[in-house]
């Protein structure tokens, strides 16, 4: 490890040191505001430090971590996402927990896990990142100790996620047995020369994929998703839906790219199959949901399905670069939108009881009660639905371009069908929000969380910016990924 290496992993170091500092600070004085600010600062710093790290990229720091533009891009994304989540949850956790400071510590750790995953090029780093992320999330989900639903959600997530990790690890073990390698690239090389167990190879890869597919809540590994999303505190759900999934997706894509698993057509076709399942089932499940959180959970299944299209696209070498670019844009747009949506949901739904069971009824007439919040929510929903002028549309446009260049017609048509179904449930929320005062009887007090509002506003502005003037980001992505 030399100075360059340290510079390359600076974002991780910032997070690690920041976590330590946070711990000290909490031990020293308990002040949720301070902790939240500090945590946000740490994560934002980590994101910003990626610029420094970029100067030395690409660098391989030990066989475990690879600091290149790809990993740094996502480390930045996760850092900012974590920081915003911290700020968004500031008011929320104070309301729901007795000692909220550790929440932010856990958040920093989770972000660190995600960033490690962005860097990971080795089974060990993958394992560490994944578990750092997951274990922190268990605690984060269960954090509001006043109610039992988060508890149930955390328990379910823990057991199932643990099983999924075990499955993925078992798969890696088999791959290791077959190839003798743990680094992604080496595994790929090992696969070409291995003589033993071609028969074990693909099942092993399938197990790895299944384990990670669980984390991405692809159908048929999706059953946990709505329950956990529903039970978890809304800001955590946002984090879970965006960062946790994004990180796993990033590492999965890295694995496929580095180990060149695209050679195995059947494996890629399985990803395509799951993409189709997810697009259809996710949208269908969300169709008649009256609980907005669950609806968003199901829709996240669908979104992961859309995202999985890039694997099939990457089958043809020509389109691979575009596919990765599309996936990156999609992840960025999706992260911003999801966090914004859940952040707004937090603001809309918060009441003292703890369970934020966000039924459609509760947003009824929001447009007239809270015009600003409702407008922001409208933009977030439209972005999720992929309506033009939002980031979500450009993201989908990217995907369509990639898929067209790769001639993946079946996936494209599924995308169209899925999006069409999606319109219904997103618009239903809009419809409820615009119901006239005389048409509903809900009068809900909304806490005035100015931080949340400002942050949501910023996020929405980002979404619109990415939707209206996407060229800089496109340009950047093209530059770093080609």
């Amino acid at each position, binding site marked *: 490890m030399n100075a360059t290496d340290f510079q390359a992993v600076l974002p991780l170091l910032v997070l690690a040191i920041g976590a330590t500092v946070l711990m000290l600070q909490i031990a020293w004085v308990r002040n949720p505001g301070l902790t939240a600010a500090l945590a946000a600062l740490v994560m934002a710093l980590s994101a910003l430090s990626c610029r420094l790290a970029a100067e030395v990229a690409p660098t391989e720091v030990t066989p475990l971590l690879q600091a290149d533009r790809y990993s740094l891009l996502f480390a930045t994304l996760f850092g900012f996402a974590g920081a915003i989540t911290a700020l968004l949850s500031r008011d929320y956790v104070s309301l729901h927990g007795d000692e909220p400071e550790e929440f932010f510590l856990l958040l920093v750790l989770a972000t660190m896990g995600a960033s490690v995953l962005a860097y990971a090029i080795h089974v060990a780093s993958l394992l560490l990142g994944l578990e750092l992320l997951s274990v922190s999330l268990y605690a984060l989900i269960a954090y509001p100790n006043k109610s039992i639903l988060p508890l149930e959600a955390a328990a379910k997530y823990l057991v199932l996620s643990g099983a999924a990790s075990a499955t993925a690890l078992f798969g890696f073990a088999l791959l290791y047995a077959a190839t003798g390698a743990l680094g992604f690239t080496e595994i790929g090389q090992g696969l070409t020369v291995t003589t033993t167990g071609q028969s074990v190879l693909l099942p092993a890869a399938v197990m790895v994929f299944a384990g990670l597919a669980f984390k991405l809540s692809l159908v048929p590994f999706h059953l946990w998703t709505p329950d956990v999303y529903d039970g978890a505190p809304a800001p955590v759900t946002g984090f879970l839906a965006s960062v946790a999934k994004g990180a796993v997706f990033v590492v999965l894509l890295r694995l496929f790219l580095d180990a060149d698993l695209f050679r195995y057509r059947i494996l890629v076709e399985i990803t395509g199959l799951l993409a189709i399942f997810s697009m259809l089932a996710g949208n269908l499940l969300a169709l008649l949901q009256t609980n907005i959180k669950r609806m968003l959970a199901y829709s996240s299944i669908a979104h992961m399905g859309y995202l999985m299209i890039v694997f099939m696209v990457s089958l043809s070498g020509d389109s691979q670069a575009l596919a990765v670019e599309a996936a990156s844009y999609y992840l960025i747009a999706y992260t911003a939108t999801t966090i914004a949506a859940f952040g707004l949901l937090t603001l809309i739904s918060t009441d003292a009881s703890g369970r934020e069971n966000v039924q459609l009824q509760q947003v009824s007439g929001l*447009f*007239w009660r809270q015009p600003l919040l409702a407008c922001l929510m409208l933009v977030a929903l*439209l972005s999720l639905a992929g*309506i*033009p*002028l939002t980031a979500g*549309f450009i993201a989908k*446009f990217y995907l*369509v*371009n990639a898929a*067209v*260049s790769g001639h993946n017609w079946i996936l*494209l048509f599924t*995308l*169209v069908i899925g*999006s*069409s179904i999606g*319109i*219904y449930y997103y*618009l*239903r929320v*809009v*419809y409820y929000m*615009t119901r*006239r005062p005389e048409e509903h009887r809900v009068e809900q007090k909304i806490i005035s969380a100015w931080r949340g509002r400002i942050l949501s506003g910023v996020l929405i502005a980002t979404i619109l910016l990415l939707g209206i003037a*996407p*060229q800089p980001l*496109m*340009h950047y992505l*093209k530059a770093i990924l080609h």
Partner: protein
Amino acid sequence: MTLAVLILLLLGGGLLAWLAERTHPNLPRWVALGVVGISLLFLLLTLPPEQLALATDPRHPGNWLAQLKIDWMPRFGIAFELAMDGLSLLLLVLTLLLGLVAITASWSEITFKPGLFQANLLWTLAGVCGVFLAMDLFLFFLFWEVMLIPMYLLIAIWGHENKSYAAMKFFIFTQASGLLMLLAIVVLAWQGSRVSGQLSFSYFDLLGLSLDPRVAWWTMLGFFLAFTVKLPAFPFHTWLPDAHTQAPTAGSVLLAGILLKTGAYGLLRFCIPLFPEASMEFAPIAMGLGVAGVIYGAVLAFAQSDFKRLVAYSSVSHMGFVLLGLYAWNQLALQGAVMQMVAHGVSTAALFMLAGALQHRLHTRDMGRMGGLWHQAPRMGACAMFFAVASLGLPGLGNFVAEFLVLLGLFAVHPWLAAIAAVGLITAAIYSLWMMQQAFQGTPDKQRTMPDFDGREMTAMAAMMIALLWLGLYPQPVLDLAQPVLDSLQALATPLDQAHSLVSKAAPAAGSGL
């Protein structure tokens, strides 16, 4: 720049109208009226007359009155590219005029959040103007989709009893078909990049691509679906009666008067010129759908008891003529189709305004509960009569010129199809007169009192009447404006025709002299 300013004017005007609500609840209407009026004046005044003369000269096809191109997403070869020719100008003027009508129609009807209402109205107009101007396919799609949202809100917030269903149906139909179009656009752009090595979404770059017939066919179908859903053509029309019926008056006016025309415009501007061969091949099916729409819409219009629903189905019937005209693909029919777009826009807008006025006064759209209204409201009755006979195609009014030209053009290509479509003239008479009978004739209800049209409403009505008369008696200016576009379309068809005739000459001569 004129074009961008026009769209910005409408967008900004919407915002202004929204904000104006805080000052005074009546202010938004005036703001909206002013903004649309200014836009219209702006559009007409900034147009150099000598250029207008140029554009009407059919010897200069593709002569654009105004153009604007700003790079937007070079990554995909997407530019903010607007351009206006005679056809666009025609439709823009129609849009803005009907915008004025829509604002007038909503004058006293909307009491709930009038500012936001007018804002949505103006934003819809902006979106539609964008659709008529965009020359980048991506941009076109963007406007195409974006105009849905304010329209959706108009229906969902200010609509009638079943608004949520109607608004949702409208949105999903358009959106689902729109996504297919997006798919087709992207495919087309990538096909273009294969030829030129450069990804571009510009209309001008994609025009005249030589495509693999199968690709062209499917891509064309994507466009066609999106446009025929909007048009709407049988059997994709079922969103229309619901949306039109449930929308507030101004919404119905905009929907019927303008939004439907975006579909026709799309076919005319994009679907046919981009895929001439595939369109030619597809023409029989398209014309079949057109005829089916003409008859089916008319039969169902007759079956309705809801005033607005009747008018909505009559739109289905009339827009069937547009489809027929476009795919009959000769000068006469094409001019007829354009004419129908304009004339139907005006006549249906008027009928919807009338329906809205009736609903506002009687709190019902059920014609079973009307009857004899002529007695209470002779002016409304007279207006209704005028537009009813316009809609059944009375010569001397715009709709007749349109339908006659369409059928005349169609007859040269497919006499039998024209004969079947001509049945639509009879069925149109049946439902139009039935509507008059149920609403305005018959025994008046003595208890009912109902104010007649006031000056504001009469002004709008009179303007539309004059427009229809003008279109019916001296349609030449409209025809001239559309001529260059249609000439270029015709030019596309000619080589194909020759190819076809070569084929048919090779085959043993058959068929009658028809």
